[in-house]
């Protein structure tokens, strides 16, 4: 070392590595501004090399360099470079295909017992309301408020009730109606996932309540001998929509369970493991609700044949079961 007696060794340390740091900072700034792709193949290949060199420089500097100006620059440079090197995949296809093939169905399979519990809660709600309304039609108003009922209440004539099952709205309103249903249901589904954090209780209540609305309406139509037509009205989209609601509920229950009973993991670590998978379940459910909204808003208003409606419902039930149970199995 040619430095004079009172030149710190870190001066030489910096002189030897400075050029690489400056080159790295240039690449990082460019990637931060306009994306990793803008660097080009050659520079992109340099990035990890320079990043690892800076990483090791920082390791040495932390242990034995006392120049705060240098230390703070290196800390910030390495942090920024790390964030550029390990940036998320951004291309649509890179994300969507794996998600659909194994991300979503895999996440659903990982909570199959919660899905069962969530489905049972929905059924339980329906059964309770069904029995109560069959016994006393006045109870109907307990479960369905007038806004949701839209004229479908015990005072309506049987003919009027039948008409609600086969009415076609004007074409202009169809898509609007479908969109409204989709956004409303999705918001409820997303809300359900978040509510899981507050111990999961509101999730169970929400599922019971949704089931009760369904059960009460079912009882009303059964009373008037419209059971077959009622189910043909509900099921084509209901198979998809109710399944999505059940999945969101299951996600909420799984989160709630993790909060209350963390099991083998530390609570925070376990929450993270469950949370990420449940985010996938909810996102997939939102896609299902979009489909359900389209069926409900468009298909159901156009097709009035009862057998066709049942066929479609059966096809969807089969497709969803097969997809969620089998897709991406080999990757798991």
């Amino acid at each position, binding site marked *: 070392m040619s430095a004079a007696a*009172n030149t*710190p060794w870190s001066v030489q340390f910096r002189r030897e590595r400075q050029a690489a740091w400056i080159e790295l900072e240039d690449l990082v700034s460019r990637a931060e501004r306009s994306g990793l792709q803008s660097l080009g193949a050659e520079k992109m290949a340099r990035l990890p090399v320079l990043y690892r060199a800076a990483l090791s420089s920082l390791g040495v500097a932390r242990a034995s360099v006392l120049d705060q100006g240098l230390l703070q620059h290196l800390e*910030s440079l390495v942090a920024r470079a790390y964030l550029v090197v390990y940036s998320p995949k951004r291309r649509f296809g890179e994300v969507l295909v794996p*998600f659909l093939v194994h991300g979503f169905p895999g996440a659903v399979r990982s909570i199959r017992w919660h899905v069962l519990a969530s489905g049972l809660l929905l059924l339980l709600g329906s059964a309770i309301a069904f029995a109560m309304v069959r016994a006393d039609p006045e109870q109907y108003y307990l479960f369905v408020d007038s806004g949701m009922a839209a004229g479908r209440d015990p005072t309506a004539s049987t003919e009027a009730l039948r008409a609600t099952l086969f009415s076609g709205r004007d074409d202009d309103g169809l898509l609007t109606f479908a969109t409204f249903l989709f956004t409303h249901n999705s918001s409820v589904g997303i809300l359900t996932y978040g509510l899981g*954090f507050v111990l999961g209780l509101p999730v169970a209540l929400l599922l019971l309540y949704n089931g009760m609305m369904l059960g009460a309406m079912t009882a009303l139509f059964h009373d008037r001998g419209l059971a077959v037509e009622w189910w043909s009205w509900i099921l084509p989209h209901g198979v998809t929509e109710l399944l999505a609601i059940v999945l969101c509920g299951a996600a909420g229950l799984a989160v709630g369970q993790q909060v209350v009973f963390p099991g083998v993991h530390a609570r925070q*670590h376990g929450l993270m493991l469950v949370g990420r998978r449940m985010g996938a379940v909810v996102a997939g459910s939102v896609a299902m609700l979009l489909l359900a909204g389209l069926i409900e808003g468009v298909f159901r208003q156009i097709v009035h044949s009862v057998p066709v409606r049942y066929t479609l419902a059966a096809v969807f039930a089969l497709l969803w079961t097969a997809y969620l149970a089998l897709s991406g199995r080999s990757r798991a």
Partner: protein
Amino acid sequence: MSTAAWTETVTTPEGFELRFGRAAASERLVALAIDLGLVLLAAFVAGLVLYFTLGVGAALLLLFLLRQGYFVWFETRWNGRTPGKRLFHLRVVRADGGPLTVETLLARNLTREVELFLPLTLLANPDVLFADHTGWVRLAASLWILLLLFFPLTNPHRLRIGDLLAGTRVVVSPSVALVRDLADARAAAGVREPEPLFRFSPEMLAIYGERELTVLEEVLRKAKRSADPVVVEVARSICRRIGWTDEAAIGTDHARFLRAFYAAQRQHLEQQLLLGRRRLRKGPKGRRPG
């Protein structure tokens, strides 16, 4: 950010522990307000345009997409940043050091429905939530919902519920420019290494520790001119402490003396560090095994 507290650590896949500053709750709040402002603005403008061109359905869909998609979209595209976060150099990182995935970002942002939009609805228009409930039910539910809003203030990492579920942290990652090395005499004087102007004995250098060195570095970096009163005062007090008597050698250029002392002191402490001896600060308690 001279004395930034590196309080969030993230272990990279290489096994290296990175240090970030923790984002303050106030900064996150302002960043959030900016983002929400942008969402509202976009919703208002684009919503009106769509309402009059494609109809109310398209406008509804857009509102939904903005509300649920704004944060996920930007944090995916900009690697953990939104326009609001960018202003304050805030970023979302994974606590376990892996790259952010869309699943992670969905997990952390879908909870906003519960911890942000639900409380905001409550504050703006409680009647939407409790159509026909009054009194105690309303009070209890309101308190409970508002608790969700203040959840980040209940833990030291300032985690939202979404951060907990996604395993993410919000950190500050500013870019710090590389400043000149104060001890590099060649950088100041030219290509050749100049002869040292002052010679300090080992006893003189054995007094101060790393903390005093850091303060000295700060003083020198902040000094605008060599006759800065702070520089003069610090130089005098160091002279007294180390027993430097050659006032004539210092002359009027106190900054030159301080720079020389800084270089010598740093050289001494760094050499001790290489030998595994660490001196954190002056006094008998400053000595720690390195």
